[in-house]
């Protein structure tokens, strides 16, 4: 029985003759909310993108639920950073969420009634039903984040991978997003989040991975937040860590 949602073995990513990630090996637990943390420039987003194949690693073996990504793509939902999206793009909330129902092997198919129901369910779960026909630029930060979450929900994936989803989001929205994530976890889904804010790690995550261009440490949250472990990752920059966003 597969105990891990993601297994990473010897992942190395080079970027323009510089080493972004050096020989990272880690196993992320099934059915838990995992946080990837580390200082700015520590390669957290690169780690995410390399695992998902968005960026090509120099070496490394990645397994999802014991299989290669190609075998389980439908089960992996990617939620990108909000700042990487063009919010002026002519697209509605509904259309973004409908991307969750795409199937590369049958992209010509019309949207089925079943798909429509799943999309509406996803919208309802994040409370965006009334806003579904708005252009995405017309939403607040928290609402925008929920659009991407709804897309991941519509995909009905077992693993949701998110890149700094709480940046620039008001506290109320952060809470509501967290609640949805916790519900998903309780249903058995796995969630991996690249996170920017040390102060919320204890409340959000069950498992923590500390990166600093290499693996510093990985383990249950309680163990990870010892000062010595944090110092190895953050070094002197820990002095400047605050609840402010690093983006």
């Amino acid at each position, binding site marked *: 029985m597969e105990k891990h949602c993601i297994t990473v073995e010897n992942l*190395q990513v*080079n970027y323009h*003759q510089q*080493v972004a990630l050096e020989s990272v090996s880690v196993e992320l637990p099934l059915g838990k909310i995992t946080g990837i943390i580390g200082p700015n420039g520590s390669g957290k987003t690169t780690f995410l993108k390399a695992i998902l194949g968005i960026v090509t690693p*120099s070496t490394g073996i990645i397994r999802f639920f014991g299989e290669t990504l190609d075998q389980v793509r439908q089960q992996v939902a990617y939620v990108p950073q909000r700042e990487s999206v063009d919010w*002026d793009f002519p697209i509605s909330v509904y259309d973004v969420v409908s991307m969750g129902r795409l199937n590369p092997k049958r992209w010509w198919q019309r949207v089925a009634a079943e798909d429509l129901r799943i999309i509406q369910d996803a919208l309802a779960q994040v409370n965006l039903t009334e806003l579904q026909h708005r252009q995405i630029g017309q939403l607040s930060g928290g609402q925008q984040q929920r659009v991407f979450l709804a897309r991941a929900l519509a995909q009905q994936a077992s693993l949701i991978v998110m890149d700094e989803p709480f940046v620039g989001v008001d506290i109320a929205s952060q809470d509501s997003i967290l609640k949805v994530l916790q519900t998903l976890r309780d249903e058995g889904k796995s969630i991996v989040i690249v996170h920017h804010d040390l102060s919320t790690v204890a409340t959000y995550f069950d498992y923590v991975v500390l990166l600093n261009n290499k693996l510093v440490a990985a383990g249950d949250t309680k163990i990870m937040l010892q000062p010595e472990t944090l110092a190895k990752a953050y070094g002197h920059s820990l002095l400047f860590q605050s609840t402010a966003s690093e983006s």
Partner: protein
Amino acid sequence: MGNGLIIITALLVALPASLLGVFLLMRKMVMVGDAISHAVLPGIVVAYLLTDSRDSLPMLLGAAVMGVLTTVFIDFLNRRIRIQQDAAIGTAFTFLFAVGVLLIAFFAGTNTDLDQECVLYGDLETSFLDQRIWNGYLVGTGAIFQLLPLNILVLAVIVIAFRPLTIWAFNSDFGKLLGMKTGRWQLLMMSLVSIHAVLSFESVGAIMVVGMLVLPAATAYLISNKLIVVLCISGAIGILGCVVGFFVALWLNVSIAPTIVSICGVFFTIIWSLQWLRGERKVIQTSSASN
């Protein structure tokens, strides 16, 4: 003698272009420079029709204003009409250029000096015919007399205002923090680009201007990161491109202006491929080191 005058004219077009182009490159405004060189066409045509000559100062000023108005127009399309940046540039300059072409077509019958293709190619080959004689000595051509002040102006501006220009080019936000009126520097540089475009039209035509703006500057930027070095290399490449391009054009019996740009393009490609090959070797070295 004619050859010498032609080369000098070409140099006087290429030098300010290669210098101004460095700043456009830094500010990611290269295509705006391209837009300006197209957009000045209607201004030139109108001024020409009104004053019936190609030499007058009002024409120059009018067309320079036209160039600055283009940046304002693009900005207007971008911010007020909310068209995205690249579409705003594309819309602005094609419309203005179209208007210019139509004006030429309307009045081509009466004014044989206006010619659609001349607008593109320029007329370096015959520019030496417009000679200025003073006290029996040949002192230059009409084109040279127009371009020389521009060259002096551009060099003067760059030398005198080097510090603030560097800040404007590399770190505009920082400059604003210091209280620098970055808008003014932008206006100044865009005005120089417009004046250059107008003056160069006659010699090298519209399309060549963008080539001289971007190619020497980009080549220099591949070689160095320091502004002063980039400016020097860019200027040198512009000059070299003119000389080599001129002789190649003579040899192949083809139009001079596009040959000059093509040669600059060859320089760029050579420098780029050298750089790329060097980069590839480094990658092979680092990956074999880590294995």
